[in-house]
């Protein structure tokens, strides 16, 4: 009997502990599925649920807040998913929250992610419906990746050509990489550039100093650059100069015409300018005239002293003296 009682005790412990384990496991699983907490449900419409199943997790900002309760076809393009969420999360889910379907990890179970809405909106109520957003699916992703891969292949092929050309020393860059003479030239060029740059800096400093000098008052340059009155005057001077230039130009044109006429015509001036014999003859004539005039003067002087004309000349002198007085 004593042995029987001991056996029963041990059996009782075994059964109790095993049942307790079962109950704890059931509670933990049930708690995960929100069977023992207050819940509320909201709906969301999708065009494609990507293999979502009843019981899949629902996450709000990355926190598990509920599970998928039901998935029903509304019509040929719309699927309604009802989610059971913990009541404690209700104040945080606004009416403008957006639900998306994603995966738990790269190849994990499908889950619904609820993206929080703005605080300005009211919290959702039991039975409300929130908006959905269909993210790019794995197939679309793969097809995009395929195109990207093709482009990458083309790019790498081109890049290979470029690198081959570079290695072989073709083209400017290739020569730049492989030609040692060019490298030396470049080095020299750089040295020259450095020197030129140094010179340019010096020149700029000098220019700067000159410009500083320009800034001094009463200097001609300052007046030229800064004095508006002088500027106006200069403008009028320039304008006058322009006018004078125009006049001069017309004058020169006329002169040109005259010279042309002189050269081309048959007037005396042409022969005067071009005929040296005539000039010589003219010189002789002038000399003759000069000698003739001298002889004439002498004759006239002799005439003044002649008794026939002496009275007339004296009379002329007297009249002139009167006029002078």
């Amino acid at each position: 009997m004593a042995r029987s009682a001991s056996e029963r005790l041990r059996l009782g412990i075994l059964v109790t502990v095993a049942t307790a384990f079962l109950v704890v496991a059931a509670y933990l699983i049930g708690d995960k599925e929100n069977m023992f907490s207050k819940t509320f449900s909201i709906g969301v419409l999708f065009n494609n649920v990507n293999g979502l199943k009843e019981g899949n997790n629902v996450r709000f900002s990355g926190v598990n807040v509920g599970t998928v309760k039901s998935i029903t076809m509304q019509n040929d393009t719309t699927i309604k998913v009802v989610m059971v969420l913990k009541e404690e999360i209700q104040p945080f889910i606004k009416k403008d929250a957006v639900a998306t379907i994603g995966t738990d990890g790269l190849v994990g179970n499908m889950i619904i992610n609820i993206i929080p809405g703005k605080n300005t909106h009211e919290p959702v109520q039991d039975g409300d419906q929130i908006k959905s957003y269909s993210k790019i699916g794995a197939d679309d992703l793969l097809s995009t990746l395929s195109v990207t891969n093709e482009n990458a292949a083309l790019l790498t092929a081109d890049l290979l050509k470029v690198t081959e050309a570079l290695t072989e020393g073709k083209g400017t860059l290739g020569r730049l990489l492989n030609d040692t003479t060019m490298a030396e030239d470049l080095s020299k060029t750089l040295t020259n550039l450095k020197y030129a740059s140094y010179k340019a800096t010096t020149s700029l400093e000098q220019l700067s100093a000159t410009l500083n000098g320009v800034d001094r008052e009463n200097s001609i340059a300052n007046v030229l650059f800064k004095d508006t009155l002088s500027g106006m005057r200069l403008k009028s001077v320039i304008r006058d100069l322009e006018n004078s230039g125009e006049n001069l130009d017309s004058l020169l044109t006329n002169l040109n015409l005259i010279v042309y006429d002189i050269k081309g015509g048959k007037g005396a001036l042409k022969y005067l300018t071009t005929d040296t014999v005539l000039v010589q003859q003219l010189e002789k004539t002038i000399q003759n005239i000069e000698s003739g005039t001298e002889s004439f003067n002498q004759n006239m002087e002799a005439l003044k002293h002649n008794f026939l004309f002496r009275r007339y000349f004296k009379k002329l002198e007297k009249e002139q003296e009167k006029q002078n007085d």
Partner: protein
Amino acid sequence: MMLSEKSIGSLISSFFKQIGALTFFAGHFFKEAIQPPYEFNELLKQCYSVGNRSLPLVSLTGFIIGLVLTLQTRPTLQEFGAVSWMPSMVGISIVREIGPVIIALICAGRVASGIGAELGSMRVTEQIDAMEVSGTNPFKFLVVTRITATTLMVPLLVIYGDVLALYGSFLVEHFKGDVSARLFFNQVFNALNFSDLIPAVIKSVFFGFAIGLVGCFKGYYCEKGTVGVGLAANTAVVMSSLLIFILDFIAVIISDIFYDL
């Protein structure tokens, strides 16, 4: 030698006869189990015999299953960079499949052979006949209590085995991956659903029933003297093990229909 002399037809005929006899035996069990009087004390004794006496073996086996499963799977998961999925994977594997089947097979080896040998020896020593003569219903006293005991205790042993297997797995993860107990068991229970737990418990009940039924059937109808006792124990183990796998297959199909796994 005997088997080689039998034709295929007689083998098939023998197989179906066995199935038929087993079905009648099961029907007899249900009939006797419902009808009073109930052998409650004997049932408790058998529960203790099946449950408590199998507990050390089941505990050790479960613990080692957890350790080995985790150690063997770890390198592969590491290659994929998915070691963090170990608790989920081990949890689902043990609770859904490995725990119930392995523990049931252990019980088949220990309990079914024990029942087969015990009842077989009672049969060959005519103790069962003596019980009938003395007015005691040997079927109710010997068979109903044992089958009920295995049906009740095997699920409990499976739960123990599962818990210890998870603990073994946790120890490996803790020492190799520095995973805390809270994180490990959180991940295990996050991965588990009722669709994992309920079918596992239900099929454990059927496994227990099959172990008890086959053990009792083979022992109760034992023939050919002391040689028959050994044969009864041996065939009880073989047949109950085979039945466990068949039931497991059926259970997977049925749970697949109900839970869409």
